[in-house]
């Protein structure tokens, strides 16, 4: 039972961080960024090259990876900007960008899985029945920091307030002197950085190949949809719930793909019961 909870919490935190990226962009402009997992994957691979192959210090390599993801997200947004008013075209366009990024990763770091050593290998924390490794603690800590930090940022910082007003009513925000274009760029960069962060943090737990973030994609998407694509704390909660349920499912059965099946049923049920959570944003 202890391992189910600790594994579930760790994986769930990753799902939540990936889901934040979806929610941020959707809240800002009603766009679903389907290149999100691939953007994170590119950053994680740069981190891998720098840390493992070039043996740079961990923090510097991680910062470079996160930075690359933010830049790629920004570039994607600039490329697709003329279509930003049309969510469906944006979705298809980002799908294309994701395909191009996957191809680039396959071309540069072939399809063989790479092994990433765990950060802080000696550290484990045990309390009650739970046992967390250093890498797992880093993931959970990152989720807490991001959730609280984003909450404070949106509540108190000037840019955060501007972002919220753009999300509420872009036209009114323009009249108040807010640069909507710039806010959109900031959102995309932040979302890309979160994808990169998730990629860097999850890399020790999995075999890194160009498709590893796509595995997180469905889980993160479900978490974001369950939270109604709005609230970050709710998204975090949904992500952790999915992580826990998945950990329990894996312990009970070994049927492959059962988690995906469950998630699709949850997505369809969520969209059928609450169709207003998507598509009717600007009512």
């Amino acid at each position, binding site marked *: 039972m202890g391992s189910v909870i600790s594994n579930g919490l760790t994986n769930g935190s990753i799902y939540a961080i990936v889901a934040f990226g979806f929610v941020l962009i959707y809240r800002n402009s009603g766009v*679903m960024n*389907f290149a999100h997992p691939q953007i994170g994957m590119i950053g994680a691979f740069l981190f891998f090259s720098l840390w493992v192959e070039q043996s740079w210090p961990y923090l510097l390599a991680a910062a470079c990876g996160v930075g690359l993801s933010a830049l790629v997200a920004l570039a994607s947004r600039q*490329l*697709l900007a*003329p*279509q930003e008013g049309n*969510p*469906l*075209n944006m*979705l*298809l*366009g980002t*799908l*294309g*960008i*994701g*395909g*191009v990024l*996957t*191809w680039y990763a*396959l*071309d540069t770091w072939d399809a063989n899985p790479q092994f990433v050593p765990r950060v802080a290998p000696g550290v484990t924390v045990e309390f009650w029945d739970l046992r967390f490794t250093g890498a797992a603690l880093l993931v959970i800590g990152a989720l807490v920091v991001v959730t609280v930090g984003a909450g404070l940022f949106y509540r108190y910082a000037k840019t955060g307030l501007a972002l919220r007003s753009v999300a509420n009513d872009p036209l009114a925000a323009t009249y108040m002197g807010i640069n909507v274009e710039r806010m959109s760029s900031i959102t995309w960069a932040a979302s890309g950085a979160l994808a990169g962060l998730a990629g860097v943090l999850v890399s020790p737990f999995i075999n890194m190949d160009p*498709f590893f973030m*796509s595995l997180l*994609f*469905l889980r993160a*998407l*479900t978490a974001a*949809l369950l939270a109604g694509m709005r609230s970050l704390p709710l998204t975090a909660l949904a992500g952790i719930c999915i992580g826990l349920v998945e950990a329990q499912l894996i312990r009970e059965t070994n*049927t*492959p*793909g*059962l988690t*995906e*099946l469950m*998630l*699709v049923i949850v*997505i*369809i049920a969520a*969209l*059928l019961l609450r*169709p207003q959570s*998507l*598509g009717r944003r600007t009512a």
Partner: protein
Amino acid sequence: MSITPPVTEEVDHEASVAAMPTSWWRPLIKPLILSAMLLWWAANMFGEDHAATAVDAAAVICTVCGLHLLIQWSGQVSLGHMAIVGIGGFATANLAVEQELPLPLALLLGGFCAMLATVAIGLPALRIRGFALAITTLAAATAVSAYLFRQDWLAGGSLGILVSNSNFFGFDSQEPTSFVVPALVVALIVMFITMKIGHSGVGNALRMVANDDEVAGSYGINVGTHKLAAFLFSGFVAGIGGGLMVLDLGRATPEMFPASESIVFVAAVLMGGAGSIRGPVIAAIALVAVPEFLDIGHYEELVGALGLLLAVRFVPEGINGQHEHMVERVASVKAKLRGASS
């Protein structure tokens, strides 16, 4: 005394032409002759490699025709068609191996199995629309390839299913130079049916539903039936496409139908643009043939994604739109020339 000339009845030529019963076979002559020429050429001129490419193209054309009807005419976006192609492929392989059905029958019934599987996504699609439907189909496709294609009863375990029978109406289905003829015939039939649907009242009703389903409903069109029917048709032809792929290779494995490759079909439909199926068929042929003929090696996997991206970003009206522009431009140049000469 003046003689008035007898009043001859004025014959309205246009009206009489319209009233004349049009023979049903007359519009078929040109396409039939073209098809026969194409098939003769395919049967005799294709080398081994190019025949294999043509069979691939036939399978993709089948899928893309159905997806074009679904996306451009009925307004429902499916991003997970590879899952349906896969279900059709596995069903065809199972029917051919387990039930020992003749291959053409297995192909047809495989299409029907794929059609039935489409109901699972077509029914929720009656309430989930647009953007949300795109997300749902993508998620469903991921689940199908992660769960369904790993089940032994459908996918036959880790090795997949081997189809040893290769007699397709006397053609050898595992020999591309021979199979290219029946494959192209199937693709031509699918294109013809799709075209006919597009020109029929059903096609008009579909486009009306896509435009505004409330207005369509108030005109007495059953919105739900039409939306579901569009899904069923696209599922059927996608299943046929998958069956062609399986028969061509002689085996069915999960790796043949990766969910991420659905992007190629969507790319073909978007590059084709709204309107007739001419655009998407050209785009489908281009997406399959260009990597083969140009021999661009590992850039091959890039073509679908890049095509989708460029189509969305730079040419939202697609090949059909470009064709219209061209026709307009030619007409205006002609008019100018006529004006200058007179």
